[in-house]
């Protein structure tokens, strides 16, 4: 090999130029620059300033509700819901018809998006516009066992977020399971109903074939 090229085969060149310099340049351009650019965008969503009607029976104060949202988010992380559900709507592939308005950076600047949960796979539908699409009860049943509401679903069941007990009915002749959500389940559903709350006037009219069976509440 020519001796000229040999200086690029030495410790110092590889260490400083390849190892440090190129990586730092890339980090500045593709990591820090976009991050700084969007961190100047004000948070368009904010934490809710009141408890939505459906949740007033579960949370007694606004702080408790906020706490619940954060906990719900944590469950969403620990169960890796985000590996099967994305949280942003793209401007292509008719996603605005299916899910709602295209996602903007300003929608993701609050603390419920630290860390961000964009996701990279949609085994199930995008959830960033989920708010108001389904009633809470649907969500509870779906979380307990998705097949009970969507028979072909491949979503896992999460019964450990529920209390089950047998109760006697018909004067003790029959038994029935009574399933009540634990706090975690309530928090997850609160979180799901928060996702896209700021655009919840949007309906899903082009997509809702199962909503005919289960219409959204309002």
């Amino acid at each position: 090999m020519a001796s000229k090229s040999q200086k690029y085969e030495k410790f110092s060149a590889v260490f400083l130029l390849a190892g440090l310099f190129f990586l730092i340049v890339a980090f500045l351009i593709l990591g820090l620059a976009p991050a700084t650019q969007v961190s100047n965008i004000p948070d368009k969503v904010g934490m809710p300033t009141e408890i939505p009607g459906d949740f007033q029976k579960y949370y007694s104060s606004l702080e408790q509700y906020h706490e619940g949202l954060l906990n719900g988010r944590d469950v969403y992380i620990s169960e890796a819901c985000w590996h099967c559900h994305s949280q942003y709507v793209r401007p292509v592939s008719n996603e605005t018809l299916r899910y709602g308005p295209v996602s903007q950076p300003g929608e993701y600047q609050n603390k419920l998006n630290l860390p961000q949960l964009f996701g990279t796979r949609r085994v199930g539908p995008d959830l960033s516009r989920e708010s108001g699409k389904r009633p809470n009860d649907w969500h509870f049943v779906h979380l307990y066992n998705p097949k009970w509401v969507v028979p072909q679903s491949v979503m896992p069941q999460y019964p450990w977020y529920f209390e089950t007990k047998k109760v006697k009915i018909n004067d003790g002749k029959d038994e029935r399971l009574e399933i009540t959500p634990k706090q975690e389940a309530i928090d997850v559903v609160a979180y799901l109903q928060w996702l896209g709350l700021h655009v919840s006037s949007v309906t899903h009219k082009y997509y809702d074939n199962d909503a005919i069976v289960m219409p959204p509440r309002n």
Partner: protein
Amino acid sequence: MSNSNSESSLVPYGLVKAHLLISVVFVFVAVLGGMTYAMQFIDLYPFKAVEWFSPGRVRMVHTQAVAYAWIANAFFGIMYYMIPKLTNHRVLSEKLGWVVFYVYNVLILATVVLILAGFGQGLEWAETPRVLDPFIAIFVVLLVVNLVTPMWKARSKPFYVSVWYILAALIWTPLVYVMGNFLPEYVYPGSGGAAISSMYIHDLVGLFVTPIGTAMVYYLLPVLMKRPIFSHALSLIGFWGLAFFYPMNSTHHYLYSPIPMWSQYAGIIASVGVHIVVYTVVFNIVATIASDWKEAIKSTEIKFLFTGTICYLITCIQCAIQVTLSVQSIIHFTDWVVGHSHFVLFGVFSFWAFAWIYYLIPRLLNTAIYSESLKSWHFWLSTLGIFIMQFDLLSAGLVQGYMWKNLAPFIDTVAASMPFWWVRAFSGMLIFVAQVLLMINIYMTWKQSRDSAPANANLATAGA
């Protein structure tokens, strides 16, 4: 390359052996996790409604085991072998090496347990629980110090291509780890965090796995073929191309997301630049093998290297196609991407690591491999499995992508994916069985060496 006594003091054989043997156990754990998760999709999940084996958690264990338990352990072991051989200097401290080995693997076990207990972190490829991140960072730094020392001692001379790759990767890895695990978790929410997180997703593969994998081929192939690599100049272009283009690819993982569009364009352009890297590397490897085709075809190790290289070529051509915005609009979020990831981490880098394992384990244990035919079966089943899986998931991706675009009800697209998920589970089964064969083969080889241990104990215990 036989192990004489003088070499055993240069290379920390015990460490090489320990890392490689445990990596074989972990590759089993990794495919077991993947296989289990695949069952969820065909409605045969074995642990329905069991909290600790909730499919989402098992998925995180699967990817973490692939990256940090299997690939990292195998690569660490192989680096402990390559670096002293290439620089003619020892690592800084073998004791430190053992401390890192034990602590690192305890951290891996803790990762598995804590993820199953519900403490996974919400960042892709960085699901290691938050409490463990700082410790992993510290021990990765220690490993780097240990391994960079011999290169530093040999700094006055130009290095062989493998050393450039390893040196650069060792500088990148800790920086990338700290960046990817802490900034998006604690500092930058939303799109900014996603931009940084995408750097981590990309750089873990691009700046840790890829360069070390390439270094491994550039070392092992000439040894097995008993001839030098085809072109030194090409390897130079390949290396500097990687160093320049790879770190800039990242945003292509979140195209059409709310990350500023200019940075998405930059990511796309740099991704196309990666082709320079890939074609030089692939051409170099294939030309080296082609120079003595008949010899090569006989050796399972070379078959692993060659097939891995073909997979590398295919994934990278695929990358250039799928990184364009028009293709992204269809295939993003679908199984296409899942197919791509499996092809990269299994078809390419695991195959290269298998070649090394079959090359080193018999030498380290001072005995012949237990069964040549198991080895061959491992190769063919893995190859068949990964190619079926790739083809199947790419097709599934197209079906899902177009159905979504055509506004089919979501559940119909799930139903339409079902046959593809069955095929995926089947191909996963082939891969799973293949890894069981690997485990059996390595275990029996180890046992065989144990039984004849007193006769040739010098190497087997050299590092401990």
